[in-house]
């Protein structure tokens, strides 16, 4: 068992950190996590700027096979994510770069690869995921929106919901029933289309703290060229391929490392009755526990990358990272708001401590536990597929 990095990896990591540290300097105040990318114009511009900087260096295609200009090593992706997470820098489209690209690499035709991989690697085309529907949240098989083939085109009708960043994205990927009478799991297609085609209406759904992250997307006779990933009718398989990439998103994991450092710094520099908070044994004990859990989630992320490198990643392992890191963020945010006392409730303002990030995390952590298949669904998958427990009829 070897947790070490090669000299080349170490060098690359240094480079990742250097560039991200530089980019951090331009970060808008209070910019934090996924939500800040999509919420304000300022955040979106910053995201695109970083994306361009990364694209320039070929970092959006890091883990891709050499023939598509990648290094072929998932560990590079992890190291890059660590650097970004540490500096809280956006620029990597979680939909395009992190989910769609590996899915295309795994299931896409050569034609699709040649068209979309360069688009993704350029950082100029951002994606969204047209996935859940009002009556198909965790239960994706229940979706009802349709894509009916007409020659070389599809006509799409239906309604999608919880679409992160639909109001920003240039392109989308998603699944639709393409055969209304087809057998379940063989009746959908995984389609890509430009979000500027006619017939798309986007309604914002504000998050509980008023941020604009989610949207409802109404598709009304949307006519798009047939750009299918995988086989027609076999979108379900593609969905499952994508799911593992989706859930092993380790950026969230590594960003906690920085939040921990900030927390330690806050506790060292904030005094109560002349004594730094850091000396409060309750705080010491609780932060130490969280630190251990962050380290655990980091090693688990390494394991996922290691499995991915060998093509051995299972939904069980991906699910474990998702469950553990999302619930860890919840505990961490909860602890931090506690440590801040009355300031734990304060939003970004002149009274805010740590730019109000703790108050935000306290609400935004749900994004981790609910989206991409709720943690409850993940636990089912671990039990059924991982541990072989019987599925009740």
């Amino acid at each position, binding site marked *: 068992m070897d947790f070490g990095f090669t000299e080349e990896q170490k060098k690359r990591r240094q480079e990742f950190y250097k560039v991200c540290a530089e980019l951090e300097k331009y970060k808008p105040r209070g910019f934090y996590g996924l939500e800040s990318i999509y919420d304000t114009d300022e955040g979106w511009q910053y995201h695109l700027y970083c994306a361009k900087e990364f694209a320039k260096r070929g970092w959006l295609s890091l883990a891709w096979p050499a023939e598509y200009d990648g290094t072929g090593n998932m560990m590079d992706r992890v190291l890059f994510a660590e650097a970004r997470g540490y500096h809280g820098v956006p620029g990597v489209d979680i939909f395009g770069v992190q989910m769609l690209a590996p899915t295309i690499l795994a299931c896409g035709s050569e034609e699709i690869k040649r068209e979309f991989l360069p688009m993704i690697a350029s950082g100029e085309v951002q994606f969204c995921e047209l996935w*859940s529907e009002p*009556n*198909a*949240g*965790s*239960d994706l098989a*229940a979706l009802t929106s349709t894509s009916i083939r007409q020659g070389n085109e599809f006509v799409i009708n239906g309604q999608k*919901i*919880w679409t992160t960043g639909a109001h920003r994205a240039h392109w989308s990927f998603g699944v639709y029933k393409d055969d209304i009478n087809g057998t379940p799991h063989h009746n959908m297609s995984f389609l890509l289309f430009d979000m500027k085609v006619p017939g798309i209406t986007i309604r914002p*759904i*504000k*998050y*509980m*703290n*008023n941020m604009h992250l*989610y949207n409802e997307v109404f598709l009304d006779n949307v006519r798009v060229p047939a750009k299918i990933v995988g086989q027609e009718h076999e979108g379900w398989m593609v969905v499952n391929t994508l799911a593992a990439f989706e859930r092993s998103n380790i950026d969230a994991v590594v960003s906690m490392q920085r939040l921990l450092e900030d927390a330690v710094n806050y506790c060292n520099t904030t005094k*109560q*009755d002349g004594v730094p908070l850091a000396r409060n044994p*309750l705080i010491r004990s609780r932060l130490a526990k969280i630190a251990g859990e962050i380290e655990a989630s980091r090693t688990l992320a390494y394991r996922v990358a290691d499995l991915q490198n060998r093509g051995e990643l299972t939904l069980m392992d991906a699910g474990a990272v998702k469950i553990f890191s999302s619930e860890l963020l*919840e505990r961490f945010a*909860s602890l931090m*708001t*506690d440590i801040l*006392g*009355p*300031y*734990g*409730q*304060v*939003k*970004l*303002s002149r*009274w805010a401590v740590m730019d109000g990030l703790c*108050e935000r995390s*306290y*609400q935004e952590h*749900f*994004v981790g*536990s*609910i*989206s991409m298949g*709720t*943690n*409850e669904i993940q*636990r*089912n998958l671990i039990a059924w597929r991982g541990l072989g427990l019987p599925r009740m009829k």
Partner: protein
Amino acid sequence: MDLRFTEEQEMLRTSVKDFLATECPKSKVRELEDDKIGYSPELWKKMAELGWMGLIIPEEYQGMGMTFQDGMALVEEIGRSILPGPFMSTLVATFAILAAGSEAQKQEFLPKISRGEIKLSLAYLEANGKYDVSGITIKATPKGNDFVLNGTKMFVEMAHVADYLVCATRTGDSAKPEDDITLFVINAKSPSITTEIIPTIASDKLCEVNFNNVHIPKQNVLGEVNKGWQALKTTLRKAAIIKCAESVGGMQACVDMTVAYSKERVQYDRPIGAFQALQHIIADTWIAMQTACYLVYEAGWLESNGLPCDKEASMAKAYTNEAYKLVSKWSIRLHGGIGTSREHDISLYYRRAKAADIACGDTDFHNEIVAEKIGLMK
């Protein structure tokens, strides 16, 4: 022993619930969150007509003369429905006047409170964020017939619309931090006072209040100079218990909404409430809510009957803090995506649960009181 609400309380609960369902639906709550003022004067007037502000004020001061427990029954419903505005802050300030006010002060303020003519708030916390008495540092200095007050109070609920502030100040330099606390009733409309709303998770209009050479006539001392701690302590204990009652109502709403949603929401061809893993989580939230209830009710009964209850009040607050956060968190989790959205009601409770945790002392603060009261040596 009889652990039911009295018939009178049941009637009160029903009427409050019905009234708020009509007058303060969740759409109104959201509107008031975004509103600068943060409460509805018309609604306030109607509440006054119903006697809510005077509910626990003795009849001789034009109140309804009901008990602290009756007040809890009312507040539990307020917590269930969520009512933004200066009701809770006024109630807490009322506790202070009841605890320390002279007959003249009671005559001056309580009838006006009963009639809903004035709104109050307790100015207690400061920038240091400390819940205990040593957190009170701002100084009131005698000058002629006045005291002159300078300094800043923080997280003062609804101070921007309050007519009077009950303010905890320090009027000496005693070694014991309990020894030189003085309470004042201060006209909040004084030009020497500025208030600014601090943006918070519950948008509940907690304010920074600056006192700039505020002259306070001596007759505005509540109780005795330097002897304010006992009355303040009583006030804070009552405030903590009544905050718990509000949280208990909120938790009940969370459980009810989640049970209802889980019966309706269909996934995988069945209501999600049919999934055993979710059933167990829901059962656990119900147990957390239920255990909190009776801890709070017990503390309330002791308080209402003038029995010692520092320990039980702190147990109730510490437990309820965590229970409400837990219950509301799971309620969102079980609602899934829709639960995280602003347009759905459930997150209103989650955000208030955090605010409630902080208000009147957080869990560590109260657990330290419990530690002392169960006899752990200091």
